[in-house]
């Protein structure tokens, strides 16, 4: 079961992943965007860490809401509102339960994905973070249905699907976000937001390991 400690550990590992992959994400964004995605995500999750040091949330939902508000106010760019919405919807989905079971977590993933789509209006294949979140949410749901209560299976399924989804953005021509300005030239590069999404979902696995 995913409790608040897991949630805080997850967010802490997210911050670590963003710091470690700051230059990698900048490099991805340099190729088809404006070289700031790694900087934005790193700034945002460092702020989440600072917030977590100030207030200790009592439930997973509270931790996710604090993350949503912090990302919304510190990341900026496209990623800020999109991730902010994702975490906010996930927070709403898990409610104020002290522990989240696999099925609820799978629902939270779907809610997060739906939030991103609602804000950004991107479809699958548009070469955005949606291309990581949609397969992740679907794989999470499938694992929750099969796996009968093994939360790690849900987390692993989501992370692997997100990673595959991020890699699958490589050949796509972007139709949303900054990379779309490049037209055909955007093909052959990984979408930075899909890559950071995969890092976030991988950190969720590590937090439960």
């Amino acid at each position, binding site marked *: 079961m995913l409790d608040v400690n897991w949630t805080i550990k997850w967010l802490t590992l997210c911050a670590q992943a963003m710091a470690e992959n700051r230059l990698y994400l*900048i490099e991805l964004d*340099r190729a*088809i*965007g*404006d*070289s*700031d995605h790694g*900087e*934005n995500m790193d*700034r945002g999750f460092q702020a989440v860490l600072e917030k977590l040091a100030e207030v200790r949330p009592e439930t997973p939902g509270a931790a996710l809401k604090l993350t949503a508000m912090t990302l*919304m*106010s*510190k*990341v*900026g*760019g*496209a*990623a*800020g*509102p*999109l991730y902010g919405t994702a975490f906010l919807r996930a927070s709403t989905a898990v409610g104020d339960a002290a522990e989240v079971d696999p099925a609820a977590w799978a629902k939270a993933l779907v809610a997060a994905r739906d939030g991103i789509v609602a*804000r*950004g209006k991107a479809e699958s294949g548009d070469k955005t973070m949606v291309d990581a979140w949609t397969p992740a949410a679907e794989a999470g749901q499938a694992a929750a249905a099969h796996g009968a209560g093994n939360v790690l299976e849900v987390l692993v399924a989501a992370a692997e699907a997100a990673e595959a989804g991020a890699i699958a953005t490589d050949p796509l021509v972007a*139709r*949303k*976000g*900054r990379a*779309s*300005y*490049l*037209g055909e*030239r955007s093909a052959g590069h990984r979408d930075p937001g899909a890559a950071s999404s995969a890092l976030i979902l991988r950190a969720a696995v590590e937090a439960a390991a």
Partner: protein
Amino acid sequence: MKKLINDPRAVVAESVEGFGLAHAALVTVSTDPLFITRNNVPTAGKVGLVSGGGSGHEPLHAGFVGLGMLDAAVPGAVFTSPTPDQILPAALAADSGAGVVLIVKNYTGDVLNFETAAELAEAEGVDVRTVIVNDDVAVEDSLYTAGRRGVAGAVLVEKIAGAAAERGDGLDAVAAMGNRVNSNVRTMGVALAACTVPHAGTPSFDLAENEIEFGVGVHGEPGRHRMAMEDADGITDRLLDAVLGDLGIAAGEKVLLFVNGMGGTPLSELYIVYRHAAQVLAGRGAAVERSLVGNYVTALDMQGCSISVLRLDDELTRLWDAPVNTAALRWGV
């Protein structure tokens, strides 16, 4: 990367602080959250004008805060749109009760963050209208894309909508004026050399000695396509063709011609571009009634320029000529 900066992460805060010190007679800087307001906002009865966006485009937007233009500007991190918690207090500060117009360059990040801020402001009882600037003809506009970018045309929208607000136009009228300018201006840009984002440390793209990026925006992003270097007249022809092809200026029409520097190109070169652009427009029978030449919407130290053409009518010309008193644009006062 060599830059006149201290900590790369403090670039925006320190630069805006310096701006506030240099222009204390005009503006006030709020540091946390970061935004800039015209001194003595709000102006009683006047519609408030607020713009903002990623930093790195200076003097945009802070340089256009003041009489006859913006009431507040909200700078994000370099090339990153500001966040709602910056935009909201700026909008609240700019509101005299007559409502606020947000002028937003059409980028996903800017649109989303300003959208959220607009919702929050309305929740606090402020009447909000949003004008989306999308003048960049380098980008195809379609339902299935992020749409055209907002680039140098933003200055013209801010100046003319600002003059409308200053003369006392109501909220819808000011927003309509902003949209009217936007739908009559088109821009096309070119880069000869990329810029270097402070936190990234390396140039945004690499160009060979004989290459240029055609159709660039103002975020150091690669352009529409890469092509062989040409002389100034050749490049000017291409930029202007793209602009006029989309805007469709007929003989006898009046225009404002705006040659905007990307930051790293000497002013003398911008005038060489202006010269040929003005000649071509004259050759097509257009009357260049107003001009603007200089570094107004930049991409840090990028080398290159953009050409914007705004179709003028008597009212737009009158509002363009109306007094303005900002750090970067000033006349009539």
